[in-house]
């Protein structure tokens, strides 16, 4: 089997031994109606309404969408506009917590009897891919293709982030319970729980927990970036290749993040929808790096203050990891369902891009075998036919090419710009 290209990054998992701490209730939460991939929700509440924890406050008629729930009990102060880090615009609901954190009557364990009721419950839970992409979980499960393998993604290959790792260390039974539930309800035979080699404790724990279950394989992934990318993890754990224009389901696989699986298990027990988020707070501006469990909608500023961030000195804040995360323009943006990390840096110097020296490092590191230097050249002369031949459409923006480039060229960004030149199918 051909080995895919990787890059070796400094892991910087400074928070791996930081047990999750709950953030104190903030003075205000801002809950966007779009925290997932797909149609944004329409607010179900208006200014002045009293809401409770777990109450549904946003819903959409579209199938490709997931509902939004309140993370606090309190009063709706405003319904405003919000632009996500991805640039999508949606409504947002601002709630002032009353401090009582009363749980809504809507919150009760779902009745799950078969695949259909399970998928319905998954949608109601507000679940979307917690690894960062936010793909609606129920859509993944609603495939008509025959699925024989569930790949559970515990790679967490980005530097700094330990949120999934803490899930695996703190809630291993939820992970195994979730795996068994998904397997049983969807009729999947095998599970590959894939964890990067830099998390030996998690690998050891799960190997013990699954010792008597021959349907769960613990796969140790090489400690290199980007093991957690969907196509990469499928290839490295099952040997299957997801072809251009097809979905993992077409090769009999669905991939779920380890935290998503564990969340679904808890939801099946207590019916509390997705209203909190564990995120790693780290970076050189952070006084006390840690893993924080925050109500969704908490402003990044509150999280930063809790972790003793030197806010005056901060130059760059990243929502997510340093490789694929988004740098945010404003620290009053909210924690959303997909916020796996908040990184704050005070020393950041943008390097200047110089001419391509054709060293080929970008080609040598691309996990998919793309040629970013050639794409860059074709993009500059707007050669769309060549961009098609170079398969720029398959780029997953993992950032390895930009990282490796000695001329500091933003190759990954160029790939995304080049994709926009391709005619829509």
């Amino acid at each position: 089997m051909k080995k895919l290209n990787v890059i070796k990054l400094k892991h910087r998992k400074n928070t791996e031994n930081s047990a999750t701490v709950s953030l104190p209730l903030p003075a205000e939460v801002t809950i966007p109606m779009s925290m997932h991939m797909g149609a944004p929700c329409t607010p179900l509440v208006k200014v002045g309404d009293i809401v409770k924890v777990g109450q549904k406050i946003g819903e959409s008629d579209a199938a490709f969408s997931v509902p939004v729930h309140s993370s606090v009990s309190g009063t709706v102060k405003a319904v405003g506009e919000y632009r996500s880090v991805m640039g999508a615009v949606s409504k947002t609901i601002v709630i002032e917590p009353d401090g009582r954190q009363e749980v809504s009557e809507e919150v009760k364990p779902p009745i799950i009897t078969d695949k259909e009721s399970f998928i319905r419950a998954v949608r109601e839970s507000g679940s979307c891919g917690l690894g960062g992409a936010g793909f609606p979980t129920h859509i993944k499960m609603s495939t008509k293709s025959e699925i024989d393998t569930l790949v559970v993604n515990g790679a967490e290959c980005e530097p700094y982030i330990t949120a999934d790792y803490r899930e695996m260390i703190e809630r291993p039974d939820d992970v195994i319970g979730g795996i068994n539930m998904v397997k049983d309800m969807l009729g999947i035979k095998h599970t590959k729980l894939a964890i990067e080699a830099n998390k030996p404790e998690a690998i050891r724990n799960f190997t013990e927990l699954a010792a008597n279950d021959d349907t769960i394989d613990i796969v140790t992934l090489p400690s290199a970036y980007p093991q957690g990318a969907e196509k990469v993890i499928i290839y490295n754990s099952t040997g299957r290749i997801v072809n251009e224009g097809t979905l993992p389901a077409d090769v009999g696989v669905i991939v779920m993040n380890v935290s998503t699986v564990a969340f679904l298990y808890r939801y099946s027990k207590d019916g509390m929808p997705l209203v909190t988020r564990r995120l790693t707070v780290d970076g050189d501006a952070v006084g006390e790096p840690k893993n924080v469990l925050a109500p969704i909608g908490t402003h990044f500023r509150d999280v930063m203050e809790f972790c003793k961030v030197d806010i005056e000195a901060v130059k760059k804040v990243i929502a997510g990891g340093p490789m694929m995360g988004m740098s945010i323009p404003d620290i009053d943006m909210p924690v959303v369902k997909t916020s796996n990390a908040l990184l704050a840096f005070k020393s950041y110097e943008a390097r200047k891009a110089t001419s391509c020296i054709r060293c080929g490092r970008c080609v040598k590191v691309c996990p998919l075998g793309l040629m970013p230097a050639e794409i860059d050249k074709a993009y500059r002369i707007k050669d769309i036919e060549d961009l098609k031949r170079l398969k720029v459409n398959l780029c997953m923006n993992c950032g390895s090419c930009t990282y490796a480039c000695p001329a500091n060229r933003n190759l990954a960004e160029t790939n995304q710009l080049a994709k926009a030149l391709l005619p829509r199918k």
Partner: protein
Amino acid sequence: MNRLIVSPSPHDENPTTTTTVMLNVIIALMPALIVGCVYFGLRALLLTVVCVASCVLFEYLSRKLMKRENTIGDLSAVVTGIILAMNLPSTLPLWMAVIGSFVAIVIVKQLFGGIGQNFANPAITARIVLMVSFPAAMTKWVEPFTHESLDAVSSATPLVLEQLRGTTDEPFMPSYLDLFLGKTGGCLGETCALALLIGGLYLAARRIINLAAPLSFIGSLFVLTWVSGGDPVYQILAGGVFLGAFFMATDYATTPISTKGKVVFGLGCGIITFVIRHFGSFPEGVSFSILLMNVLTPYIEQLTRTKVLGAKEAEKNG
């Protein structure tokens, strides 16, 4: 609070820059350069200094004249200067070396857009231009260690000797060891295969170069010579093979990017070198082989693109 810096991902960067790459190449050239200066004396060092200084000056002036950003900081002009000097006989008049630098930096490199944009190797092209323009001066070889005496003992290169082998005036042939250690006549940086090998392996260990091109170059020359009944060890150790294979057939700008392409490039160099040496009237063919393969590089590149994971076959009309 400062205004936050917003930039596209990734936000992490690795410490390698164009300058560190070039610095590593300079380090890798040092063994062969030092050996050259020991064998051929201070004249060799002077020639190298002149080449480097004139290359950097031409780079600076041409960027200035074209109102483009100054790029001497990337050290690529220094590398070109050293490699050019290593491709010259130590006796070459200094003004000719300056002409070589002009050809390398201004004509071959900057007129095509500067670093990474040139299609031909600057040092190789300069060597060829000088060889064609000043054939006598470019083939005035001296024996190593004879530079101190007033009339240095002139010498033929091992490849010239090889051409005379078997004729009535068969000369005394250098041993493999002499060739490996470079104790023969030749350009100041090309004679010592050992020093060049050390530099090449250093670059490979630092992952600056890929050994695909050097190995296929040297390998194909070895096999072809062997099959044709020649002396393969002699052929790969003599002349500019090691200098060309490790330092010029691995030039980023003028060789293919993919490993497959690099193998093709090396094979082409080996074959052309063999053909010139075996059938041609020139004793040496390394420079021409690399230049010819430089010209073919865009085509090799087109035909040796990497395979993309899970990509559908490109439409035939695409």
